[in-house]
């Protein structure tokens, strides 16, 4: 059976799993943004925290993803529903690019601009919201882009622990030695990653300060 024919025949399943995949990536990226960006802002302003925070995030990144999923399985509330576990793990993996890029972006703002702003009487919050964040936005967004692309890939492994998503097609295809099934999962997943990369890359470019 031709591949496209296969997708057409099973489009209900493929669509359902794609949406599931997007859900996993969307929620975890959102959580990582909510935690990572404030953390990045924090360490940009308190350099003492810089090393421990970045080091921790780095350590988390180096844990092999399947191993992380495995560690978390026995944890009571998390292990009960695979999606929770998967979302937590994906969030943790998305943290490093977000924290690091937020930090770099804010530190990269021209110090003269910050000094002028402070000297003019902007409060720290105003400085952050009106000057630092808008100028760091392009770099921060690049961090989001990296986080999303990583998440799309990692979410395929989430199926190994029952969280669903396009990885389920890949794993089932492997067990059945059915290439079409494998591709039915792999190609949409790759497609999502590319889409995210291009889409967010375009926005990033538009936001880069001249």
């Amino acid at each position: 059976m031709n591949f496209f024919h296969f997708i057409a025949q099973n489009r209900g399943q493929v669509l359902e799993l794609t949406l599931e995949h997007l859900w996993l990536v969307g929620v975890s990226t959102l959580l990582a943004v909510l935690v990572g960006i404030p953390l990045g802002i924090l360490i940009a302003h308190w350099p003492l925290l810089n090393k421990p925070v970045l080091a921790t995030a780095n350590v988390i990144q180096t844990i092999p993803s399947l191993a992380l999923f495995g560690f978390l399985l026995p944890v009571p509330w998390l292990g009960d529903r695979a999606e929770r576990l998967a979302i937590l793990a994906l969030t943790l993996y998305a943290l490093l690019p977000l924290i690091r890029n937020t930090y770099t972006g804010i530190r990269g703002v021209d110090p003269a601009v910050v000094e002028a702003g402070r000297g003019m009487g902007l409060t720290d919050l105003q400085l952050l919201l009106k000057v630092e964040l808008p100028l760091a936005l392009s770099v921060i967004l690049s961090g989001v882009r990296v986080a999303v692309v990583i998440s799309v890939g990692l979410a395929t492994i989430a199926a190994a622990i029952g969280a669903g998503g396009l990885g389920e097609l890949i794993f089932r295809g492997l067990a059945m030695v059915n290439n079409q099934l494998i591709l039915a999962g792999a190609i949409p997943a790759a497609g999502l990653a590319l889409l995210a990369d291009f889409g967010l890359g375009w926005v990033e470019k538009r936001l880069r300060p001249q």
Partner: protein
Amino acid sequence: MMQPRNLARRFAQSVAGSTAAGVCRALVLAIAVCPLMISACSSSRSDRIVIGSKNFTESLILGEIMAQQIEAHTHLKVERRFYLAGTYICHQGMLSGRIDVYPEYTGTALTAILKEKPEGERRQVYERVKSEYESRFGLTLGPAFGFNDTFAMEIRGEDARHLNLKTLSQAAAYAPQWRAGFGYEFMERPDGYRGLAAVYGLHFAGQPRVMDLGLLARALRDHQIDIAAGNATDGLIPTLDLFVLEDDRHYFPPYEAVPVIRGETLKQHPEAALALAQLEGKISDQEMRQLNYAVDGQRRDVKDVVREFLQQNGLLQK
């Protein structure tokens, strides 16, 4: 009343001072809204039922039996999601509504999901699992298919006849003369070899040999080992003339095969439950072995084997 998107734009502009940043804020909002939108447009299951199975032959066969049974007796469209990698994954699939029905074993449900000790007799275990699944997960256990895929202590048919052995207690006397062969899991599990040896007072000649499950039957036949721990429904048991010793002290927990159905599915499609109920007790240990052999040993197509089975048992007539 201002549109949310315009509101977001205005807010962004006032805070960041540039339209481009406003676009970016809208994007962040989109990433945030995406999961909500997706959950809102959940797929409709009005006329479709998803049947899952684990990734070994027996589970596949049971899944296919249930699938064809439902197809024959209801108007429901059946989607097969077989080869799911294990108990946990199937269970998660049920909880999240990804699959509606799948075949499980009472013993496995008891230990792997409910995390209780693997003991009790058949009826007890079945009732326990049924009530816990109902109250904790909203999952219903259908009536058992009729066979018990528990651990089986196998010996060569000739030895059984020659020594007139029927039960494990009887065999214990000959244990010191026998070499045993087990799979890795059986060696490791507390309810495996260790418990068995204790209950029956077994002392084998030398250390039991540990090998891959698939090789045990042949090793037994070739006299490399004299007793093996396999599964009660191994397809090779009849073909290699192996004999399963009766577990007269009821050491091994029961592993009755049952269909597990989601509560919602039951409500929406009671006809599916009725169709599955017809399978109660229809598959004996011996019949399951034959089905396993047909697929594994004879390499026949699962669909054909199952169709034949259902026809022979008069299950395909409405």
